[in-house]
């Protein structure tokens, strides 16, 4: 008889009240979490606006998912690798990605989403779930090297249907890769609701198929996500293998700026989702403990606006790259025919 506990870990209720065991986090860290979440939301809104104005390209908003991402990253050490997707800017921000690089991504600049040296963030996954075997392999390699490091891979509920998810989970289980599979179940894969993605009651229970632990977490509760990820990373670092965390959250915005969610979502859903907004929840908690004031809030909002403005400006000022500039990145050494093609490319730039 195998028992799977799919009860949902929660520490903060939507009204900011403590309903679970508080993790050992000092006031500064709590405020830092809040700051990053607000910064991420500010970036998100600005990017959405810029896209609507036609100034940047397709963008996938993460609004609503800040807790599930920021909570997880706060459990990581800086040298531990994060494997993001197109919707992971809150996590990337928390793990050290400069804001301007986040703007460069929807601007389709080759530098978009590329982590500077020293920032342990892998390339942005576009092909759903294709990065999960890479994460499993990197984590496994770290284990072979006896490093005692934990890794975190982000992906959505839809991603769990791909063969790549399955193969990554199975390899991770067999080779005890120190990897946290962090599934942000935001209720939807574009227009496909979670219930239609798989017949399993939870995503977390999928871990049963691979012989390791899975857990459901309130993904709008940054403390719950932080705590669950911390424990999973501790196990990973200790050689106890992978964990699957299902962070139940909600995508407040459209799938991307090209999507019209009114075609498939009921307006009521949104009302409820706004009530459980992760940023609001953390703020209520901080305020309840006198760790946060109206004044601090106003200052933070202004500061976030300014950071985002400056980052966008920096992104705009980043020199464009030409096609020929990408030639050295096809192979370490440029083959003769590609060198000749580069001449041609450069010739067209008049």
């Amino acid at each position: 008889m195998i028992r799977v506990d799919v009860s949902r870990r929660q520490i903060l209720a939507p009204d900011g009240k403590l309903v679970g065991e508080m993790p050992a986090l000092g006031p500064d860290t709590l405020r830092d979490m809040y700051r990053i979440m607000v910064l991420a939301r500010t970036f998100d809104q600005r990017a959405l606006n810029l896209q609507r104005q036609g100034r940047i390209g397709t963008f996938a908003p993460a609004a609503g998912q800040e807790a599930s991402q920021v909570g997880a990253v706060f459990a990581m050490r800086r040298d531990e690798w994060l494997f993001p997707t197109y919707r992971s800017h809150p996590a990337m921000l928390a793990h050290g990605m400069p804001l301007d690089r986040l703007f460069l991504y929807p601007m389709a600049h080759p530098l978009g989403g590329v982590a500077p040296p020293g920032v342990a963030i892998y390339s942005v996954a576009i092909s759903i779930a294709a990065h999960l075997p890479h994460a499993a392999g990197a984590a496994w390699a770290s284990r072979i090297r006896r490093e005692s490091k934990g890794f975190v891979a982000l992906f959505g509920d839809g991603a769990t249907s791909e063969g790549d998810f399955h193969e990554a989970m199975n390899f991770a289980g067999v080779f005890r890769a120190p990897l946290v599979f962090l599934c942000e179940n935001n209720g939807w894969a574009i227009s496909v609701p979670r219930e239609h993605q798989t017949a399993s009651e939870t995503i977390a229970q999928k871990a049963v198929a691979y012989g390791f632990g899975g857990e459901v977490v309130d993904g709008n509760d940054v403390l719950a996500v932080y705590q669950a990820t911390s424990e999973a990373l501790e196990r990973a670092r200790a050689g106890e293998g992978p964990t699957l965390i299902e962070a139940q959250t909600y995508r407040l915005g459209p799938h991307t700026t090209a999507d019209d969610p009114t075609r498939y979502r009921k307006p009521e859903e949104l009302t409820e989702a706004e009530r459980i907004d992760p940023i609001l929840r953390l703020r209520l908690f901080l305020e309840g403990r006198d760790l946060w004031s109206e004044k601090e809030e106003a200052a933070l909002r202004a500061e976030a606006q300014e950071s985002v403005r400056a980052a966008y400006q920096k992104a705009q000022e980043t020199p464009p790259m030409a096609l020929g500039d990408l030639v050295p990145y096809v192979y370490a050494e440029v083959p003769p025919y590609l060198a000749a093609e580069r001449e041609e490319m450069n010739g067209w730039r008049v």
Partner: protein
Amino acid sequence: MARMTMIQAINQALAQAMEADDRVLVMGEDVGRNGGVFRATDKLYDRFGPERAIDTPLAEGGIVGTAIGMAVYGLRPVAEIQFMGFTYQAFSQLVAQAARIRYRSLGQYTCPLVVRAPYGGGVRALELHSDTLEARVLHTPGLKFVTPATPRDAKGLLLAAIDDPDPVIVAEPLRLYRSHREEVPEERYTVPIGKARLAREGSDVTLVAWGSQVPTALEAAEAAEADGVSVEVIDLRTIVPMDQEAILASVRKTHRVVIVQEAPVIGGVGAEIAALVSERAILSLEAPPLRVGGYDMPYPPSAIEEQYLPSPERVRQAIDRVLAF
């Protein structure tokens, strides 16, 4: 006749096929309630219900693989892969499975499957969303591959694909979905698979193009015309099985050929056409067959895709080169 965009023509073809034959169904990511991310399956869910306009889980291999089983079992699935770059995930099911159902069973089982997928750049899409796959299918006996360049052909080829007793990939040039309208017959009709279309008559040079590159070729042809060069444009329409005779006949007439493709040049469909022409019509050639295509690197971030994609200017330059040879 109504004036329609390509996406409207596709939508109409699907609706008519489903109307006429209840074995026909559409399936794929977001094709049901949402009507497809490009609205190719718009309203089919409302009209035909969730068992015939099916939202599937997010797994391209699963979509194609289960659609194979449905086709073998007697249905007529039209599977959508949201972007052709994600048919890589279904590659084994397409190439090692769908292509061999008839062969492996000596005709006991067949696979009347259609896989539709938008492809090609020029619409500022994300990584992998612009890949084209025709060269990989060209080398896969057992699969067919068509790609329309006009709304009219989009409807007729799709209906021909649905009627076809073998698996057909229908590659829809994303940037032509809404780029223009043309008169499209209201009734159900088919455009034969395996027949190229003479898109423009000419006598000095043949351009061979397909799908997304047909407008580029036509534009280059018009520019050349202004300079007194008469350019014939062949719209291949079908990549597999290829209309070799149409290409050879044109080259035997014009003695010069330039092939225009969107995918990287090396190992592309253009290589096969150049090889075909030089094997079977070398004595007619007054210049080497030239290829204009994507550069031999992965598709770039879209901020610089214009530098990557074949342009009328690049085609024009190749025309000049074969004329000056």
